[in-house]
């Protein structure tokens, strides 16, 4: 089966500095891939390079089996939807209209219906008529995710979709993205919350200093050795009644 996204030896240089070096990974339909790593590891750059928003200095990207460069803007949008980390919205448009931007390819009436369904799915359906700048950060994050879901793209890429949200909202957002994967989409999320990532993702890819340090099932990718080397943490992912949980403490600087 063709992977929704394949990266082969992707490198990015910026200002003479290597930001990513030879990263290869793929995401299949029905799968949630978590991209984790410390600040500055290259997670956002990798997502941007994968979507053609960041020029590459090397490597290949294929979306649904086709080279990224061979796709028109419309074809690329039909395959991939992107939720950037930046949640700033320029104008105080109603949530319904913001979510409908994801369904711009549909007829307006149909687009609005899809947008309202996505808002309801994220439990902000009753706020459909409210301006997004009049909302709390958490509500706005849900509206922006509704915009991503409304794209109905085969590959959903969400950069820090749960950052800064309360635990219930974090779980809801990851749950909805998982539901999309179960319906056949491929999903990539980045997260700094390793417990959340380990529970919500089928596989994790660990970036460190622009290289892929580990990839695999969560417990495998976040092994004690990786936690120590990449995150400077002493500990491990342990099984708990709620699922995998990170039990770790900061490594002493001289350790």
């Amino acid at each position, binding site marked *: 089966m063709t992977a929704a996204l394949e990266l082969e030896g992707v490198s990015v240089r910026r200002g003479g500095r290597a930001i990513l070096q030879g990263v290869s990974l793929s995401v299949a339909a029905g799968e949630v891939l978590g991209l984790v790593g410390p600040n500055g590891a290259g997670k956002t750059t990798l997502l941007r390079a994968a979507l053609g928003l960041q020029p590459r200095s090397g490597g290949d990207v294929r979306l649904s089996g086709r080279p990224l460069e061979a796709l028109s803007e419309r074809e690329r949008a039909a395959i991939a939807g992107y939720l950037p980390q930046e949640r700033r919205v320029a104008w105080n448009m109603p949530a319904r209209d913001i979510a409908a*931007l994801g369904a711009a390819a549909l007829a307006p009436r149909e687009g609005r219906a899809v947008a309202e369904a996505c808002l309801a799915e994220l439990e902000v359906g009753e706020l459909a008529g409210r301006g997004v700048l009049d909302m709390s950060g958490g509500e706005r994050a849900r509206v922006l995710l509704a915009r991503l879901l409304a794209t109905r793209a085969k590959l959903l890429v969400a950069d820090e979709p749960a950052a800064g949200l309360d635990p219930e909202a974090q779980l809801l957002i990851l749950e909805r993205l998982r539901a999309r994967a179960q319906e056949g989409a491929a999903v990539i999320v980045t997260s700094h919350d390793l417990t959340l990532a380990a529970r919500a993702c089928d596989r994790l890819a660990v970036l460190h200093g622009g290289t892929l340090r580990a990839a695999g099932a969560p417990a495998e990718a976040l092994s004690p050795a990786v936690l120590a080397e990449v995150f400077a943490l002493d500990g491990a992912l342990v099984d708990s009644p709620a699922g995998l949980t990170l039990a770790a403490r900061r490594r002493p600087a001289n350790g």
Partner: protein
Amino acid sequence: MRLILALSLALAVALGLSIVFGETALTATQYADAFARPASPAAEILFGIRAPRAFAAALVGGALGLAGAVMQGLLRNPLAEPGVLGVSAWSGAAAALAIAFGLGATPGIVEGAALAGALGAGGVVALLAARFREPETLILFGVALAALGGAVTTLIFNLSPSPITLAEVLAWLQGSVANRDWSDLAPALVPMIPGAALCAYAAAGLRMLTLGEEAAALSGLPMARLRVAAIAGAALLTGASVEVAGVIGFVGLAAPHLVRGAASDDPARVLAPSAIAGAILLTLADLLARVIPTEVELRLGVVTALFGAPLFALVAWRAARSWRA
């Protein structure tokens, strides 16, 4: 649609008032005469002098309102207006240069220079926009471009030996639609129609830019083309406005804000209402310029600035809320 209809009605009323009222007071008999006999002196005042002037103000206000709404959408900035990227400054500077070189007496030259100046600056901005996507960068380049255009105009003041030239340039920079007749409007429509069409074409892109450059880039819309269309459209509209009426500020800034809330803050839906609101504003400003009893008639640019500056401050005050968000 209801908003557009209501605004159109208000524009019709504004145009009506602008034709009915003026410096010369007419009696009821004269009004009746004007409608009954097209060749009467009253008809000449109403339909030969006031009507083309009122329509010129509406046309210029509409173009500036639309250009302002496009600039605000493109730059995602509530304080943007047609002048922010230097287009108005170069349009004015080019017209001033034409006057300084003694071409003011040749019909169409100064007007053509104004349009060429706007298009030249628009071309530079479009090239920069292709290279730099972030609105902040474009605004910074625009500030530099506007400063340079302003400097060229000031240089003309500085070096020109003739007080007559200076008076002509100053009059141009203060903006006016006095003494415009119907034949002045047709040449302005030539750039305004494609300008408005380009803005309409760019509308979907402006709406998508609400979420930022990256989300817009992956929306499936041809964003690079739409950005150039928006800049070219705004430049054509601004140049055509300067061509008809000289440099007029604040209408492009204020008009979109008057209708933004009623258009659900949508940068695409705000375009047509902004154009009509701009037309109303400038028609009324011109009426004010005519009826305020002053020894010398107030220049249109002065009236819009006098009323626009406090509005600008109010807009900045309100916009601070979205910057904090």
